[in-house]
């Protein structure tokens, strides 16, 4: 059996930050990730990050992935298994991992779950036609593999992801017919919306996709206005000649592993769905299991790095290897509070207020 002090599931911004923080404290760490290169969603984020300079603001996500991967390589105490899937975690602190077609049992003294989030789909006639994509899939095709998803795209959802992917499509030479948003307001940052408007992309609030049409694939989309009850208004239909409908309608935390472990979960709409109850150190109701990043509630890359670092230090403290934990914790918390301050952090603050609880263990 493979033995490690700390196992981290997920090599996105949260998992990498957790592993780096723990190894900084002298904890032997194994990262398990199903991707082929470290970075998680960072490897497709070609835009510059917001947040503070300490969390790489102004740096493009792809470059942050390289920075973190570089630090990982320089940390002799971190072992990294790519293309490996965590299958389950059991009573005797064994993590079962599928790697190169074989199951490996990994015994760990502490575990950080940083499994990220998954895209939501949307119900409308024709949503099963080829050409209906999630925004993450569009980014993977375009920014990781250099493949254009189509020639003319309708974007559904004006949150940051929808706005950013629209801009990246324009950069790739793809036309964006419009961005439609069900809410009355643009959910993403105004600066992202302004960038698109300057490039002649219309943003239609209080509109949604009614139907996708096409024989073998998407050829056309019908969009219509919706009222305050989110019901379509007949007579307001607009047709768009598009070969791609890109859905950017939100993310849900990926928490299968945490559920299987038996961590106490709670449904918190503001955080995207079911998330584990944890204390302010990211420790779940199972004392050796910590959570980080979007798996603890959907936020964004900078906060994922910070909750990751916090979980990494907390796991090290749990293992008795982080004597300066209170200071390190306070530093992470200060940066997180700053990121979550202001109107854009309101939803997350509301969600956290009901899920960060003393019910979870104390390390």
């Amino acid at each position, binding site marked *: 059996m493979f033995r490690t002090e700390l196992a981290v599931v997920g090599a996105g911004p949260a998992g990498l930050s957790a592993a780096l923080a723990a190894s900084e404290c002298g904890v032997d760490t194994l990262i398990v990730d199903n991707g082929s290169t470290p970075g998680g969603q960072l490897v497709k984020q070609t835009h510059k990050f917001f947040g503070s*300079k300490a969390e790489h603001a102004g740096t493009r996500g792809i470059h942050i992935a390289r920075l973190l991967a570089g630090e990982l390589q320089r940390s002799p105490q971190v072992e990294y298994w790519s293309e490996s899937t965590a299958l389950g975690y059991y009573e005797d602190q064994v993590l079962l991992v599928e790697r190169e077609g074989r199951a490996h049992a990994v015994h760990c003294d502490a575990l950080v779950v940083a499994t990220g989030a998954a895209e939501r789909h949307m119900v409308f006639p024709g949503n099963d036609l080829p050409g209906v994509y999630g925004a993450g899939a569009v980014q993977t095709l375009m920014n990781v593999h250099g493949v254009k998803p189509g020639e003319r795209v309708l974007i559904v959802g004006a949150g940051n992801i929808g706005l950013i992917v629209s801009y990246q499509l324009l950069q790739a030479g*793809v036309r964006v017919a419009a961005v439609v948003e069900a809410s009355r307001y643009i959910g993403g940052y105004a600066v992202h919306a302004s960038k698109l408007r*300057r490039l002649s992309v219309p943003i239609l609030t209080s509109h949604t996709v009614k139907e996708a049409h096409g024989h073998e694939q998407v050829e056309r989309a019908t969009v219509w206005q919706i009222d305050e009850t989110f019901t379509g208004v007949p007579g307001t239909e607009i047709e768009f000649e598009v070969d791609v409908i890109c859905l950017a309608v939100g993310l849900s935390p990926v928490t299968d592993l945490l559920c299987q472990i038996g961590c106490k979960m709670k449904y918190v709409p503001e955080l995207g769905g079911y998330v584990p109850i944890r204390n302010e150190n990211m420790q779940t109701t199972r004392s050796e299991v910590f959570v980080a990043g979007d798996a603890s509630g959907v936020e964004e890359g900078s906060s994922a790095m910070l909750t990751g670092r916090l979980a990494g230090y907390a796991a090290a403290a749990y293992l008795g290897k982080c004597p300066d934990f209170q200071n390190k914790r306070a530093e992470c918390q200060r940066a997180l509070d*700053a990121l979550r301050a202001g109107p854009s952090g309101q939803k997350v603050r509301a969600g956290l207020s009901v899920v960060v609880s003393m019910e979870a263990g104390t390390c």
Partner: protein
Amino acid sequence: MLKSTGVPEREQLDAVTPPASRRSKGPVAMFECFERIPCDPCYHACKHGAVKEFLDICDVPEVDFERCTGCGLCVVACPGLAIFILDETPSDHAVVGLPYEMLPVPEPGQEVTLLDREGRELGKGEVSQVSRPRVGSGTLLVKLKIPKEMVQDVRSFRLERGTP
């Protein structure tokens, strides 16, 4: 309004426009950043102390136009591409500096179609300079020669072919 259209209102723009007295002296930055979001690269990018330090990372930038030299370091640093350089000192035209992240990269002398904040065509302009500052992460600063009266409206451009 900005949060339903993506286009700032006139009053919002008036509040962040550098004063005419400063604009008559030389190039100066205009920060079209209106929303309280966690972001501070402009403060760190400015080498002249023109962007006041952020007490709260969600503050919108406060600019000392007298210190601003119009160098453009903040333009290429801003993740929101929300900063522009205005130069109204030439006698027969104005120059506007824009952040640019598209391909192909325009050439000085090239004619472009000028666009406003809603992507509407305003007329023709000419690329006067393309610079890629050593700092920053690849965003270019493109300067356009434009008719003087359009300096408050031109915020984007389209190449004759090849750009969306």
